């Protein structure tokens, strides 16, 4: 059975080469037959990789220690679902999963484009085959998941206790789905550059892929934050670890891309910028993988030092040079012949929004790589941790909130001064009222003050958009609800996008609240002792010891009262995993819309006394609620039109006309 997995991997590697080879011959000879043959090779490659992944998954669940990978990542007492999640917990397994996803996405893209993008598709095939070959090369020659252990063992090393959390079952695969998904728009961008067809076709063809990848990357990042919050036990959700940064950077550039493509679709401008952005996004996903696999930058997520880093570096360098060559030799086609109608236009604000997003990505990249730069220049390796990133990114984040609010207020093409002033009156008034209100309520720090007031500004602009849209639709629809439903579902790209903005603002509320107003207190407690923090009274009731499936646990019981009201018992605990000789902190959280009470059990003495650390993290729940809204908005924005393509295009055309009519209507009203 195990041999089947190994054979599947090897044959898949050979078939990927074949797919690349026949794609290139097909391109050279302009022969459809070769391309059909490459499609079949991709199908077979996917099938073989599916067999390999099934074999590895089965070996993990059945604890077949014949394989080194299984022996290193599972143990006898590990529950089956965690054993299966070990598929992506280790280096070789996660790379196999990556290759399988890439093969899956490739055959979906081929199927989607059977009768369209006929000029681009051979090059898309070749690019995707090139990426697949790289990952299979790593698996076959450097980190083979089917390597045999060579001797018999009774029990495996077990899964890292940190990864034994439900969130960890979904966090890595969603991140990988996002990372791998960006290969598709990247392949189309490369195909567009090679064929010199750099108009908006490649963007339109990959819009849903980009949104899908962005959504999955977003979910992956949020799941990672949630996991860090409940599992790492330090009271926060984002530690600016290099690997966290590595997932955040392509998210930022991907977000910039999602905005700037609108200008290319409308004005046929920024071709070079959009092509560069998606190339950078893809390269950042590879850079993230390089950081995780190389061990060159210290990280809690790293898979340990290995020689994979150099191969990733080689792939990264080759991709950069090839992309640069293509961009430099296609400058004439990429040059825009159009102009902006006005400096005061939504197009301009989108570009400033891009500047901020790319600036944030650069700042994070700079901070992540600075330890290496410092070591190269001064010979001293330093650490760049949370204080640096918080200082650098907070003002950039505030500028981003500001632009999120400003963009929808300025018309596409050209905003008249009257229109500009009229649109700003209500949001700016809300901003000013919020600022005064927050100041009166006692908030004096400039960052939270600005952040909350600007969030109010942005939410007002979004609600105004919905209000104006519903009011315009009331001419056609029976009542407000139908108007709202039709507005949302007929113009889903636009209004889905606004819902995403609402989600992001809700998340910013949580981020601002928890970063600026968190409090903590720690105390050594004996039975009956009370720890007072803000309006909470925490009574220590004692500790209990018990066994779980794979750990010895000690748990404290804390009675919680808020303003005298009994809120029940909380049980922060510590789990000792004998196999890995690791102690894990399991926090207890009491959450509502206002704040989280977050309890950590520290050391426990023989007489039953315990060291308890309590955090009050205001507004954290808003981060998770915001993320649900964001996911909903993205799904609405990417939901396909059910009508046939022509009608769908007409609908999209109608949407554009409708948006322009809205702008016109507002201008007219102003006049």
């Amino acid at each position: 059975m195990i041999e089947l997995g190994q054979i599947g991997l090897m044959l898949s590697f050979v078939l990927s080469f074949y797919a690349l080879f026949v794609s290139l011959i097909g391109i050279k000879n302009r022969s459809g037959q070769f391309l059909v043959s490459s499609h079949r090779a991709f199908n077979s490659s996917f099938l073989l990789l599916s067999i390999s992944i099934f074999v590895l998954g089965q070996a993990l669940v059945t604890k077949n220690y014949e394989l080194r990978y299984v022996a290193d990542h599972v143990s006898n007492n590990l529950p089956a679902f965690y054993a299966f999640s070990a598929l992506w917990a280790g280096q070789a397994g996660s790379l196999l999963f990556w290759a399988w996803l890439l093969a899956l996405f490739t055959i979906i893209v081929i199927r989607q484009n059977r009768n369209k993008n006929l000029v681009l598709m051979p090059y898309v095939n070749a690019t995707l085959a090139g990426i697949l070959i790289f990952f299979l090369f790593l698996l076959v020659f450097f980190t083979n998941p089917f390597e045999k252990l060579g001797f018999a063992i009774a029990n495996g090393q077990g899964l890292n206790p940190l990864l034994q959390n439900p969130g960890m079952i979904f966090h890595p695969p969603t991140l990988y789905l996002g990372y791998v998904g960006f290969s598709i728009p990247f392949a189309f961008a490369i195909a567009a550059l090679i064929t010199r067809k750099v108009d908006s076709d490649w963007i339109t063809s990959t819009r849903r892929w980009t949104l899908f990848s962005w959504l999955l990357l977003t979910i992956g990042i949020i799941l990672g934050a949630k996991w860090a919050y409940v599992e790492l036990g330090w009271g926060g959700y984002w530690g600016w670890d290099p690997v966290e940064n590595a997932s955040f950077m392509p998210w930022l550039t991907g977000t910039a891309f999602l905005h700037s493509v609108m200008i290319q679709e409308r004005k046929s401008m920024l071709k070079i910028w959009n092509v560069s952005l998606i190339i950078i996004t893809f390269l950042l996903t590879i850079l993230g993988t390089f950081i995780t696999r190389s061990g060159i930058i210290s990280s809690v997520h790293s898979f340990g030092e290995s020689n994979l880093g150099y191969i990733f570096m080689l792939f990264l360098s080759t991709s950069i040079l090839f992309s640069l060559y293509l961009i430099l030799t296609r400058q004439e086609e990429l040059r825009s012949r159009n102009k902006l109608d006005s400096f005061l236009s939504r197009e301009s604000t989108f570009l400033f929004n891009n500047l901020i997003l790319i600036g944030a990505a650069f700042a994070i990249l700079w901070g992540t790589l600075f330890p290496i730069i410092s070591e190269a220049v001064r010979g001293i390796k330093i650490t760049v941790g949370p204080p640096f990133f918080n200082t650098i990114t907070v003002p950039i984040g505030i500028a981003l909130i500001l632009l999120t609010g400003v963009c929808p207020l300025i018309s596409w093409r050209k905003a008249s001064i009257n229109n500009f002033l009229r649109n700003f009156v209500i949001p700016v008034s809300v901003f000013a009222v919020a600022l005064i209100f927050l100041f009166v309520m006692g908030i004096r720090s400039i960052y939270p003050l600005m952040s909350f007031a600007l969030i109010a500004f942005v939410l007002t602009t979004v609600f105004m958009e919905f209000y104006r849209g519903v009011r315009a639709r009331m001419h056609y629809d029976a009542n407000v609800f139908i108007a709202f439903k039709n507005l949302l579902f007929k113009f889903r790209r636009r209004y889905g996008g606004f819902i995403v903005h609402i989600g992001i603002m809700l998340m910013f509320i949580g981020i601002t609240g928890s970063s600026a107003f968190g409090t903590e207190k720690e105390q050594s407690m004996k039975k009956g002792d009370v720890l007072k923090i803000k309006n909470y009274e925490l009574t220590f009731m004692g500790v209990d010891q018990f066994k779980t499936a794979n750990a010895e646990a000690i748990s404290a019981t804390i009675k919680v009262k808020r303003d005298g009201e009994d809120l029940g018992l909380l049980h922060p605990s510590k789990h000792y995993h004998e196999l890995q000789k690791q102690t894990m902190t399991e926090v207890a959280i009491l959450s509502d819309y206002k704040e989280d009470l977050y309890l950590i059990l520290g050391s426990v003495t023989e007489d039953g006394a315990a060291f308890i650390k309590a955090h009050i993290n205001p507004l954290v729940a808003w981060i998770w609620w915001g993320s649900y809204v964001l996911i909903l908005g993205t799904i609405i924005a990417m939901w396909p039109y059910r009508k046939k393509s022509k009608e769908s295009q007409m609908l999209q055309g109608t949407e554009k006309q409708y948006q322009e009519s809205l702008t016109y209507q507002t201008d007219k009203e102003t006049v």
Partner: protein
Amino acid sequence: MKSVNFVLILIFLFLPLTAWSSTTVSEVEKNLMCTCGCTMALYTCECGTAAKMRNQIQAMIDKGMDKDKIIATYVNQYGERILSAPTKSGFNLLAWVLPFVVLIVVGFFLYKALRRWSIDSEHDDEEKLQTEVEAQYNKKLKEELDKFEEGEGE
């Protein structure tokens, strides 16, 4: 003038803000990394080494040492790597300054580029050019009229 305003706005937006605080374990630990090799900032680490370090810090605070002295003690022992962020001096200053410098410089060039790409600024340019041509024409006309008047006077 507009360009200057734009740069000033950007500078205002990105000005780092500082806050005063008293010495607590919590404040000191935010500046240090855990020494167990976990690569986590001390305040985010819950391992045994982190707990020992916190006790050490508390002991130093009890002795009357302030935040800077405690941090300096750790730097003497472990080197600069124990700090959770680069110092704001020498080469390390580059880490803090460069992102904002890049943002401001690129922002300035983007502003210039947008003005150049905009049709309305093209009209402005045309008007400016027209005004310049008109001014030259008027000047020449005035000179010739003056000459003419002088000639008549003779």
